[in-house]
């Protein structure tokens, strides 16, 4: 028994060493190779300084926009009767299933020069290529995170009776919002703000599509272009310093929050029965109109443009049936693209099988005082910006694994481990200790008790985690662009290279191939959930791989 525990602990330690410690240590080692002066020189190099400023400014702006708008929408929608909440939730969370690169590209086709909106109305979005466009598209990804955090916060902390008590005590609607509702949501809002900031700071695809053409670089895009364009050792040191700085930025945003949250007492939720359904009011209709308008501008019109672009014979032609063709699909999928598609699916499948298994392993083995720290380490690997993690992995394992798809899989596992770990941990935490004891008293041996009582609830968590990891890995671009070699391009990398080459129609066609399966599956799931009634559980943590 003792030997088994020791072996398990060793296994967990080895996993953490391979997936987290080695990449970070490699980064730190190269960054510190020239000592403090080297670090100082790298950070004050004009390119780096500007990139750091851009990253912080963009991430801060996205955080403010996404948290404000997400909170306002959640407060407007989530107080309505349950049956009228499903549709707005889907409309707001919908863009999360579109890869960042695809949505950024779709925006450029919809609202950019010679885009659909110029074609129809003569208008283009000013500043789309540059910080304004980056902030707008990243807000589309940040907003659902804030919305979901507020929704979960409302469900967990803000019993409607608490607001009623304030109203009965003489507070107006606004005063109640200011003195009761928002203070109750302070913790989820801070958590959402940190998450949005970290996601936006680590984003690569959106600044790459919308910033690079305008000469607007962030830390992620600078790391990528440094790695792609210059091979000098000085430049390499500089980019590791930059990657490490990105890690520090993320830790600065997350660390204090984590410490502070750990000390807060948890409030159990009393249930207040919902108010009886009332007739649809004018406010309800106004809220729905705003949500629809938002969803159309954020994702509806861009994705429609993407479809039209993919179907139209050449750039500049009107997207009318006379100009429609499927040639973009066949030319896009020519050559390596189809093989890359298969490779991406294989990698995503491997990650989807391994990540939940590793997550369950850590959750199941880590008991007692190791539970918290281990969860933090696993989460840390996710919070690391993809560019930084990928550079660390190149330095750590490039010697042996360079040019092999294994190095990409390692990166995926490090990044998405948390999505296997969290649901497993949550499922285990929900199990009352009495369950296994009852099984033992009913005659089950330890193994049988674990198999019959503990595993069944874990399978649901593991299946959900597998689906999520598959989607994230299939869409992953940031790490793949840094780690791929000849013969190991993933599908997302092929699409980005296609866009670099200027094949607009083919890029749009491939982007659709990348997006459509997930969107269709997500839409089917949503439709089925709607038909069988709203699910009892609120999705609390739908992440978006930066």
């Amino acid at each position, binding site marked *: 028994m003792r030997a088994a525990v020791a072996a398990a602990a060793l296994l967990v330690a080895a996993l953490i060493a391979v997936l987290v410690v080695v990449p970070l240590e490699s980064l730190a080692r190269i960054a510190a190779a020239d000592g403090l002066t080297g670090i100082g020189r790298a950070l004050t190099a004009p390119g780096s300084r500007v990139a750091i400023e851009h990253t912080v400014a963009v991430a801060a702006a996205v955080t403010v926009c996404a948290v404000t708008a997400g909170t306002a929408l959640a407060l407007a929608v989530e107080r309505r009767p349950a049956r009228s909440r499903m549709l707005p939730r889907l409309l707001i969370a919908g863009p999360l299933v579109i890869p960042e690169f695809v949505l950024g590209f779709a925006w450029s086709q919809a609202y950019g020069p010679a885009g659909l909106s110029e074609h129809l109305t003569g208008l283009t979005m000013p500043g789309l290529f540059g910080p304004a466009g980056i902030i707008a598209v990243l807000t589309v990804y940040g907003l659902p995170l804030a919305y979901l955090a507020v929704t979960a916060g409302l469900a967990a902390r803000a*019993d409607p009776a608490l607001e009623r008590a304030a109203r009965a*005590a003489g*507070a107006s609607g606004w005063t109640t919002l200011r003195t009761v509702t928002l203070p109750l949501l302070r913790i989820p809002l801070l958590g959402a703000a940190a998450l949005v900031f970290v996601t936006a700071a680590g984003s690569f695809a959106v600044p790459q599509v919308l910033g690079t053409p305008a000469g607007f670089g962030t830390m992620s895009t600078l790391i990528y272009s440094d790695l792609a364009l210059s091979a000098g050792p000085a430049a390499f040191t500089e980019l590791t310093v930059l990657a490490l700085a990105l890690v520090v930025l993320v830790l600065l945003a997350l660390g204090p929050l984590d410490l502070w949250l750990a000390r807060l007492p948890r*409030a159990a939720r009393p249930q207040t029965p919902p108010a009886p359904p009332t*007739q649809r009011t004018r406010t309800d209709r106004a809220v729905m109109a705003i949500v629809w308008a938002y969803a159309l501008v954020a994702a509806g019109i861009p994705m429609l443009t993407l479809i039209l672009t993919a179907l139209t014979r050449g750039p500049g032609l009107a997207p009318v049936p006379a100009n429609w063709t499927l040639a973009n699909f066949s030319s896009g999928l020519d050559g390596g693209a189809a093989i890359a598609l298969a490779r991406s699916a294989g990698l995503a499948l491997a990650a989807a099988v391994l990540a939940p298994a590793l997550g369950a392993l850590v959750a199941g083995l880590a008991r007692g005082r190791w539970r918290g720290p281990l969860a933090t380490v696993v989460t840390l690997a996710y919070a690391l910006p993809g560019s930084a993690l990928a550079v660390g992995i190149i330095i750590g394992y490039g010697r042996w694994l360079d040019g092999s798809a294994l190095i990409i899989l390692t990166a995926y596992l490090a990044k998405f481990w948390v999505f296997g770990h969290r649901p497993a941990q949550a499922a285990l935490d929900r199990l009352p200790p009495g369950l296994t004891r009852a099984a033992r008293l009913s005659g089950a041996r330890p193994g049988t008790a674990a198999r019959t009582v503990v595993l069944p609830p874990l399978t649901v968590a593991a299946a959900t985690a597998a689906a999520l990891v598959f989607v994230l890995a299939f869409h992953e671009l940031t790490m793949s662009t840094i780690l791929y070699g000849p013969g190991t391009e993933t599908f997302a990398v092929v699409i980005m290279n296609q866009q670099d080459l200027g094949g607009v129609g083919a890029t749009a066609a491939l982007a659709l191939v990348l997006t459509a399966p997930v969107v269709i599956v997500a839409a089917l799931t949503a439709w089925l959930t709607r038909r069988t009634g709203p699910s009892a559980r609120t999705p609390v943590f739908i992440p978006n791989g930066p």
Partner: protein
Amino acid sequence: MAATTTPPLPDAVACAGLSVGYGRPALAGLNLAVAPGETLALLGASGSGKTTLLNAIAGFVAPLAGQIWLAGQLASGPGRLVPPERRRIGMVFQDYALWPHLSVVDTVAYPLRRAGASKTAAHRGARDILEQMSLGPLAERRPGQLSGGEQQRVGLARALAGAPALYLFDEPTAHLDATLRAQILDEVARRRAADGAAAVYATHDATEALAIADRVAVLHSGRLAQLAPPADVYAAPADLTVARLTGPVSVLTAPLTPAGPHHYTLHVAEARATVPATTITSPADTTDPAILVRPDWACLADPADPADSADLPGTITEVRFRGPHTDYHLTTPAGPLLIRDPGPPRAAPGPVRWSLLRLRLLPRA
């Protein structure tokens, strides 16, 4: 004549034709008035519309039809919905509804702050109220650090702080054990006696409703089943549902013959008993009525007293000692019967004679 009498004070609450809820209405056509200073208990099972009625009076839900008048002012009606904060209402909630981010003193000071008091004045007022309710030592605690009973007393203190014209109690003792429940009820009664505000007290507990109220409104499926003083609701329930909601009751089936004004003779096997009975229909209509017997309307024969005239037959199946009284479950030729006698058990399971004191007759539903 008109010059010498002062006009009567308007009702504290008056509901006229009140319907709430879209689709299946939670309340349908309710007419109800609470006099100034009166305590009205709303008694009903869960889902009967108690909480909906309180929420409508407080202004949290708009009625579908009908009106709510507060102290003679139209508060809810067609095209009009006075917001909750302008209704001068103090509400005590089933789940306490204490704000987790505020200390006890800040919670009680909240209504005073909203009424325009300065921060120091509000805190002074809050501390006064907490002292009066012996909650002073808890002033700096957060709700998470209080027991259930303490939380509900803080909830009560918050309602008092607003000096409301009307209290609404939404099952305030539902989550409390018997001792704490008595403590809260005492506190409510004391308060009410002190400031003379009217109160509407929702509960599903018959004992509580009968003990606390001037009148009891029994709600069933969103409709008012009966509205009467507690003693009347207990002694003369309007129908079987009300009878079961307002306390333990046995329903007997036996031949019955009229025996003079307000008296009937009950035939149980060979024996018969002539007792006073109340009925809501004329004697001619009482063919095969439901015969209601409260547990204190029958008693067991005293074996020590040879002159005891109890002669109805039965068999005790179960004896339950409950402290101040004992419950005897009998099977009789007229059906199962519960008898509640004061004191410890004085009969064992087996054949027994019993006598009847009074009856309530209702048409079978």
